[in-house]
């Protein structure tokens, strides 16, 4: 615990230091980054043992604010979520050191300040044991990340379009979510205290179902469940890439953490909670990946994939919850384990992907997929590392994405064949959904990697793109290695999660976890052997080709002799069959300029896919509010006579009402 406090102190201290040194950009950046790395290292040392159940005492100080107390604790749940937070934040800091360049008249001290504050607030969110403290840290997290999102609003190149609105959308979304959390906590704390221990013991005054819905909305709007995801595709693309990585990798996971934490307060779960989670998970997963498929901006695409992966996590939680509710320890264990593992895995590969996207922005100067291409040859490191991330997020062996998805599959299968078959329909839903999501994810990431890194550059400015610096590369390599390590080492870790999962599932799960670790052992073997096999086949190829002549020629254009880069298959056309299949959901806008005349000069065809949740759900509400506001202004009509009339009428009505009865 002291270590954790020390970590927080270091983070905040370095934040202040970075701000104080803003006159000297270099020193300020160093202070921020080193502080972040040091703090995260300290914290990780504290968090890892806690995750596997080595308990350390709570910190409990009185606090003079109502219902508040400075109460921090480290139980397995907190520890488990802290590990990725510390890891990814440290990596992000290293990357940021190379990524954030000071500009004339614009020091980046603010970015470092808010970055470290963000990390610290995430730590407090996960470690808080008191409602008020939790909400305080929660809001601090939202604010600091908001300021990071708008970091690049004003640059030396002028004001970047869209950043401000993205920031405001994010701010409003997160605040409305917080409102639900506020109500939820206050309803929970019927007894008057907002201490988590008392909440867990007492249970709320309000019906648990209502509280569950509030928690789902409040935490879901942070985690990015459809339809509360509207802010992700806005905020992630405009934020600096290491910030997007941290936000998408770990910050939105605090929503999952909160959900798990609060589920602990609500007593025995009802079946419909599990069904709701599965439904929301499916919706988020499928819609997330579909909208990703329709994007033209690399980081926007990745943002939608965060929605997809949160959906997968939701599926896992839902299955686990159903298992817990039906008293099937196997299902509960596998479901929760899958969800939790996916939390870590998504942090790793999504972090990697966002960092790589940032590298592309750095090296090629654009993130517009239709302009990119051929970066594999100009940015080999970035490209290959992105490929690792892409394979991992598509849930393919031999990487970590597969491990967690397998757990969820197993949980679903186990639930299906469980005696009574009560869960079978839910399981079928989850399995089919996961399969569809997986297939679509493959489609989307073959598109992303294939169009961005393979083939030839589609735009002149991309031709002379360059590989990024050592710091950024190192950060990405670390994450890529971690992806592989989790895939090969998960079997060893899983048994130690028993305490954690028992804390969530409220039943003994050591046996199923042991079986799971055996299975994952097989998977690790298979993963290793697929690499080995590939090596063998490669050797075979080399042997076969020895002594034969190897020609280099232009790509076979099926007879067409003068192909150029503009003739390559575009990302839009690559995704078109699938997007057309789901037009009803995506409702893309088409802007076409048909070539006319005998010798047409030019023609063009563009599709833009707006977020339908925003178009169909939130925009109308906002318009309604504006409409009401316009009517409300009639009250302020400007004539003093009317104003006095209000007073007179109020007076007479009140008198009539009061004396009438």
């Amino acid at each position: 615990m002291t270590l954790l406090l020390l970590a927080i102190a270091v983070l905040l201290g370095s934040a202040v230091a970075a701000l104080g040194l803003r006159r000297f950009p270099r020193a300020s950046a160093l202070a921020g980054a080193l502080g972040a790395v040091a703090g995260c290292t300290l914290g990780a040392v504290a968090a890892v043992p806690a995750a596997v159940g080595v308990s350390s005492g709570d910190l409990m100080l009185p606090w003079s604010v109502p219902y508040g107390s400075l109460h921090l604790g480290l139980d397995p749940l907190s520890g488990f979520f802290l590990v990725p937070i510390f890891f990814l934040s440290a990596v992000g800091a290293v990357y940021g050191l190379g990524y954030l360049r000071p500009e004339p008249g614009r020091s980046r001290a603010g970015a470092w300040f808010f970055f470290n504050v963000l990390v610290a607030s995430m730590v407090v969110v996960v470690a808080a044991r008191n409602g008020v403290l939790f909400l305080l840290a929660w809001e601090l997290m939202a604010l600091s990340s908001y300021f990071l999102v708008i970091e690049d609003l004003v640059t030396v190149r002028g004001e970047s379009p869209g950043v401000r609105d993205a920031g405001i959308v994010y701010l409003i979304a997160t605040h409305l979510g917080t409102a639900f959390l506020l109500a939820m906590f206050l309803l929970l704390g019927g007894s008057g205290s907002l201490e988590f221990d008392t909440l867990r013991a007492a249970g709320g005054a309000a019906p648990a179902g209502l509280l569950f819905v509030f928690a789902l909305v409040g935490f879901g709007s942070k985690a990015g469940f459809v339809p509360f995801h509207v802010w992700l595709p806005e905020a992630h693309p405009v934020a600096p890439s290491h910030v997007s990585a941290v936000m998408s990798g770990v910050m939105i996971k605090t929503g999952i953490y909160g959900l798990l934490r609060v589920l602990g307060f609500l007593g025995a779960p009802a079946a419909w909670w599990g069904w709701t989670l599965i439904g929301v998970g499916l919706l988020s997963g499928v819609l997330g990946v579909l909208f990703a498929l329709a994007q033209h901006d690399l980081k926007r695409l990745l943002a939608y994939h965060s929605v997809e992966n949160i959906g997968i996590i939701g599926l896992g939680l839902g299955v686990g919850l159903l298992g817990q509710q039906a008293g099937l320890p196997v299902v509960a264990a596998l479901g929760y384990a899958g969800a939790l593992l996916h939390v870590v895995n998504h942090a790793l590969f999504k972090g990697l992907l966002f960092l790589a996207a940032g590298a592309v922005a750095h090296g090629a100067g654009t993130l517009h997929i239709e302009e990119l291409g051929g970066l594999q040859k100009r940015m080999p490191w970035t490209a290959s590392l992105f490929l690792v991330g892409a394979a991992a997020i598509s849930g393919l062996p031999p990487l970590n994405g597969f491990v967690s998805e397998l757990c969820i599959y197993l949980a679903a299968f186990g639930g299906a064949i469980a005696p009574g078959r009560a869960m079978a329909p839910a399981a079928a839903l989850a399995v089919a959904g996961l399969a569809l999501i997986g297939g679509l994810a493959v489609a989307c990431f073959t598109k992303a990697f294939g169009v961005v890194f393979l083939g030839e550059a589609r735009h002149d400015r991309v031709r002379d793109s360059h590989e990024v610096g050592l710091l950024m590369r190192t950060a990405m390599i670390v994450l890529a290695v971690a992806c592989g390590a989790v895939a090969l080492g998960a079997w060893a870790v899983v048994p130690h999660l028993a305490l954690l999962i028992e804390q969530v599932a409220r039943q003994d799960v050591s046996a199923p976890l042991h079986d799971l670790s055996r299975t994952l052992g097989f998977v690790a073997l298979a993963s290793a052997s697929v690499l080995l096999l590939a090596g063998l086949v490669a050797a075979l190829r080399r042997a076969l080709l020895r002594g034969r002549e190897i020609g280099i020629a232009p790509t076979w254009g099926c007879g067409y002799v003068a192909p150029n880069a503009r003739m390559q298959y575009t990302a839009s056309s690559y995704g078109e069959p699938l997007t057309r299949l789901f037009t009803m959901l995506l409702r893309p806008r088409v802007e076409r300029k048909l070539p006319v005349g005998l010798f047409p000069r030019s023609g063009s065809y563009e599709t833009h896919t707006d977020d339908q949740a925003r178009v169909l759900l939130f925009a109308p509400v906002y318009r309604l509010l504006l409409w009401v506001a316009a009517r409300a202004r009639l009250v302020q009509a400007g004539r003093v006579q009317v104003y006095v009339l209000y007073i007179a009428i109020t007076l007479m009505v009140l008198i009539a009402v009061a004396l009438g009865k």
Partner: protein
Amino acid sequence: MPWVDIALVVLILSCLRLLGGSRLVACISTVALQGVLLGFVPLALHGVTVFSGVALAALTVAVKALLLPWFLRRAIREASILREVQPIVSLNLSLLFGLGALAFSGWAAARLPLPPGAPSLGAPTALFMVLVGLFLVVARSKALTQVIGFLVVENGIFLFGALFAHDTPWLVEIAVLLDVLVGVFVMGIALFHINRAFDSIDSRRLHELHDLVLDAPSANEGTP
């Protein structure tokens, strides 16, 4: 005791005259008349007992019947205000409203227990005067008429105080009087300025400040 009732009836009639009256000067003199009656009522109610009572009555008359009317007449002269009240609600309708208001005050006052030794007509009259005063503020366009309306409201309340809150220390009464006095003076100063700035004290022109912009000028387009 009958004297009081007579005074009250006269007050009610004076209010109706204000509602129906079309000439500013006449309205002002009516208000002055009310001032006199207000000075008279407490004496009639408790008789000439203590000096303070008499002094207060004298002060009341001095302020409400002499000083303020003189001030308002001067305002008319200085600001060369058109001598007609400009009603927003026609005079006949105003009179009808007067009847309604009277009925309402009667109804409301009937639901309040009557303090011992107070004229039964007192509460309705006071409430009626307040309502009429408010009506004058609302239904007349000239700023000056609104001052008159405010005075009538004040008179109604003062009447109520004189009739019911007779134990209130004379200091309070004086403070009240003083406040009204200063208030009306400040309003008067404002009137002169208005007259200079708008070359008329038709307060209907005083409505530059409002929020009537119906095309939601969203200072924040783009939010979800």
